[in-house]
Each structure stands twice: as C-alpha cells, then as structure tokens.
C-alpha cells in the first residue's frame, strides 16, 4: 500500500516538475515582477502597485483595452456565428460539402507567419490586390488602406482572424450538428417546424454543449493569438491596433518596461482565468442538469 503510493508519486513527478518549471515558476515570476518597481531595467524594490497605477494613467492602455475587447469579444462572437453558419451548411450531405469539409481546414493548417504575411500584402494600401480589385471594379472610389486606416484596422484584423480560426469551429459544430439524432429532426418536421424552427428549437439546444465549449476555446485562442496582429500591423498605425498581446510584447521586449508588461500580463491572466471559470461554471451547470445519461 505504502509502496503503491510512493510509486504513484514517482510516476507523476516528471509532469509535476515540468509544470512547476514552465507554468507555475514563470507565472510566479510575472506576479512578483508586476509588484516590483523597475527603472531602466533595474529592480528597485518589491511591494508596490506603481506598475498598475502607471498603467491606468497610460492613455494607450485604455485604447489597448478597447481594441482587445473588439479583438476578443468581436472575434469570438463572429468566429462562432460564422462557424455555426458554415458548420450548418457543411452538415448537409452532398458531393460539394464532403469535398469542402476537407478543404476548409486549409487556413487552419497554414503557419501563422505565412497567413499574416500573405494577408498583409493582399491588404496593402498601395500594392494590395484586394484594395486594387475593389477600385478597378468600381466598388470603391479610391483604394482603401485596410491596415493603414485607424478606424478600419482593428476590424480588418478581426476578419483575417476569423478566416484563420473559423474553419475548426465550423468543423466541430458541423460534427455536433450531424450527431443530432435524425428522429428528433423528423419529429420536429411532423410537429410542423420550419427549417429555421428545427434549427432554432431542436439543433441549437442539442449542440449547446459543443457551442459553449467552442466559444470558450476560441476565446482562449484569440486571447493568446499574437503573431497575426504583430506581423500584420505591429500595433499600428499609432497604436490603433494595439492589443494586450502586442502591447505586452512591445512593453517588455522593445521598451524593457518589465514591470508594466508584467502588470498587464497579470491583468490578461485574470481575464483568461475568468473566461475559463465562466466556462467551467456553465459546463458544471449543464452537466448537473443533464444528469447521468
């Protein structure tokens, strides 16, 4: 008995060490760093909230929060909505959709950097093919600089983000929709439900579990996404597409404001943790109401 327990501890030891070294350790460091005053890369005393007060005084930080809200909330919402639409379309059996189901993952398997560079050039204000096409077909009077316009840039990033992240969401939801029992759909048809009513009242409740899971997962993905906005805009023009991930990177590795960057990381972590907590809460609630099935 005693031996078994020792063996068990021994078996999980490597994972515990890895988690301590690569997750708990750095998190602890960031936590202490955020409470440490740092001047010119020099630590000047632990136990201060000056990093957080400096952040709230920084007007860029509020812009970053707004942009991050567009990025995370807008991105997640659109990603799930578009994914739901595409997934519903893909769930219909036809020769077209079986082919598309395989093809749709293409944006998802491309490396981040390739995606970002390709879109950056396609959206370029002078040489981008998208702006040019819109102009030559007469849809716009002059070439739009998608990444150069402070009012457009955040939403342009969101569109690229959706192009990249939506396919997997669509596939997961497609699989969920296809697993809805046929006889429930047929019963709804007999009950007089239109196609929309069948989707709204039968399909959606049946896939609610996948839908919440996929929403939270995309939220986490999008929060963690860094390469795409960094390569495409680097936060510009004039911080108008600066989001948490890029601003933290800029503060720590370009300006060496580790205290500020750590403080933002802590805020970011709290945000992510609340999303996950919300997810667990919703899941536990739906598990509780599902019972053992």
């Amino acid at each position, binding site marked *: 008995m005693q031996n078994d327990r020792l063996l068990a501890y021994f078996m999980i030891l490597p994972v515990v060490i890895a988690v301590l070294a690569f997750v708990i350790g750095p998190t602890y460091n960031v936590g202490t760093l955020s409470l440490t005053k740092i001047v010119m890369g020099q630590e000047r005393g632990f136990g201060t909230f000056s990093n957080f007060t400096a952040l709230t005084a920084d007007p860029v930080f509020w812009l970053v929060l707004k942009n991050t809200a567009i990025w995370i909330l807008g991105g997640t919402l659109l990603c799930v909505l578009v994914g739901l639409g595409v997934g519903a379309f893909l769930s219909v059996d036809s020769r077209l959709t079986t082919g598309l189901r395989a093809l749709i993952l293409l944006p998802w398997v491309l490396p981040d950097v390739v995606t970002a560079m390709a879109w950056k050039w396609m959206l370029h204000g002078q040489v981008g093919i998208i702006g040019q096409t819109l102009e030559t077909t007469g849809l716009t009077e002059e070439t739009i600089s998608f990444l150069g316009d402070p009012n457009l840039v955040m939403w342009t990033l969101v569109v690229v983000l959706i192009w990249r992240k939506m396919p997997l969401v669509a596939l997961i939801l497609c699989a969920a929709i296809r697993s809805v029992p046929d006889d*429930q759909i*047929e*019963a709804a048809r007999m*009950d007089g*439900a239109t196609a929309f009513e069948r989707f709204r009242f039968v399909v959606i409740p049946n896939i609610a579990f996948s839908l919440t899971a996929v929403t939270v997962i995309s939220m986490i993905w999008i929060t963690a996404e860094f390469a795409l906005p960094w390569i495409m805009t680097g936060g510009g023009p004039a911080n108008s597409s600066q989001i948490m991930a890029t601003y933290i990177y800029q503060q720590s590795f370009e300006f060496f404001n580790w205290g500020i960057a750590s403080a933002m990381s802590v805020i970011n972590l709290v945000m992510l943790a609340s999303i996950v907590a919300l997810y667990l809460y919703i899941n536990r609630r739906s598990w509780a109401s599902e019972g053992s099935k």
Partner: protein
Amino acid sequence: MGSVTLTNIRKSYGAVEVLHGIDLDIADGEFTVLVGPSGCGKSTLLRSIAGLETISDGEISLDGEIINKRQPKERDIAMVFQNYALYPHMTVAKNMAFSLRLAKEAQSEIDRKVKDAAEILDLVPLLDRYPRQLSGGQRQRVAMGRAIVRDPKVFLFDEPLSNLDAKLRVQMRAEIKELHQRLKTTTIYVTHDQIEAMTMADKIVVMRGGHVEQIGSPLELYDRPASVFVAGFIGSPAMNFLPGSAKGGAIQTPNGDVIQGLPDGIAEGRAVIAGVRPEDLRLADQGIAARVVVIEPTGAETQLMLRTADTDITLTTRDRVSVAPGDTVHLQIEPGKLHCFDAETEMSLRTDDT
C-alpha cells in the same frame, strides 16, 4: 375523419426500387398493422405516408385529398417514433406542447390540450420532468402524448415497442389498443412482431420485399394464409410445412407418408406443400411417423419437436403426453385443418375463397 388510400406507391433509391406498387385502403378509425421481416419496405411505406420520404410514383390520399406532394406538417398526420424522438432539452409538457406552440395556439388552449392528453396517458405527475428522467415506457407514452395533443386525422407508429422489455411491451400493447378504442383515430402501425400485429390490428397488411403479400383481419390471415410466406410468418410456433406431391386425392411425402385433405382438382403428380399448424396435429396410433427430439412442457400446453425422415415438425397439445425423446410417434391432422400450397408459386391452392 381519416381514411387513407394508397394507389400504386413506388419508391426508389437510385436504381433500387424498394416499394413495387403498393395499393392499400384504410378505412376511417381502422387500426392497420403493417408487418413483415426487416427490409420488406414497411417502414419506408409508413414514412412515405408521413411525408418524411418522397415517393417516386403513385398517390397517397387522405379523406379523398391527394397529399403526397405536401410537407409533413401540412398532412395532419402525427407519428410516434421507434426511439421516441423526444426533445431532450424540453420537459414532458413542453415536448407535448411543441407542435401547438409552433402552430401559435393560445397558451390557455395549449395548457388545456396538454393536460387532457396527460390525463389520458397518466402523465400528469411527470409533466415537469425531462425525458432522461423517465423510464422507457413513460417516454413512449410522452411520444404518444405528443401525437395526441395535435388531434390529427391519422396516427403513425413506427415499431414503437421494440425498445421496451418483454413485460412492458405486453402492457403498452394493451395501452395503445385501449387508446385507439377511446380516440378512434385511424392508426397505421408498423412492426416486425407478428404477435403485436395479431393482437392489435383490425387489419393486417403482410409485406415482403416491397410487395403486399396479403391483407386481412388477423384471424383471416391465420385461418386462410394466401401463401407459404404468410402462413409461416403469422402464428407462433410457426406452421409446419411438408413438401410432397399430389397422388390419388392425397399428398404423398417423399418418404412415403400420405396426408389426406388435398383440395379437389389438383393434377396428379403436381408438387405441393402441405402446411399444418402445430396445434392442428395430434398424436395417434398411425399416420405420419416421427421421432421425438425435444419435449417442452410450459404447463398449459406441451410443445414437441419432432423429426420425420426429412423435416422437422412442431406439435403443441394441451394434453399431458407420456413420450420420451427418441420415441417414435404417429401424427394425425385435424380434419379440415390442412393448408395446401403450390410448391412452385408457394401460393395457396385453396379454392373456396380468394
């Protein structure tokens, strides 16, 4: 009202035709059972009537109106599915109210109809439960409740009892029959279980391979099966079949037994099949010789598994028998209880009716 007429119904999936021209008349209020082995097309036919399958050819009419081009919801037909198909996220009451809600009926009206149906089906204490909290039999009743609240012209049942255990099945059988007697709604019921068909139906439609094999009341099918297939399908234990040939107004089996009772006008030497139900056989001093293989007493009656030189025969008797496995016995057929079929077409050679 709800009389259903099917005319020359055909259904193909690609090049494969699964229903080969079905004609069927179902009177208002009739309980009709479609029965047959799996793959005979009975479920496809039912789903075609429901509108869940589109037929390739033919006409379905309800009270004289052709409905086969209409959507399921425009047909005024309700269906009870094999797996109940309850909406798992809705309570019993909401499941039953769903169609009424979609039809935008007034809430008071919905409540009244759901309550009425729940009372008929003993579901009142369960109205706030979710399907997962119900037993199989209760779920089945909710599925029926969902059909009842709509007060449709026709009820369709697609093997509704096949997921229940044997005891519950017998109970639900009686409940469905009682419900039909109470509501008197035209009912079309699909099953592969001939006992269900026999016990519940006003009219049985035996199907096989996309054709209607025979239509009739349960006892008509039992007493006057039109073919070897119907004779073997209806009745349990199944009818015994003894191949032979017509000889001198009787049937002679290959091993020399002579069976009396061949209908008149059968050509000498014609290959025929003699059919006799297990309960129409009795032990006698002479007749068909057979060896006892297994004896199965069930209390009320005893079943004997016998073997002649070339076939197995089942005999049931209400008498207590004193034979042992390995004994040789002789069998006589009750007068007038012999069924004769043509060996080639497997159709009945009976001449006194259709």
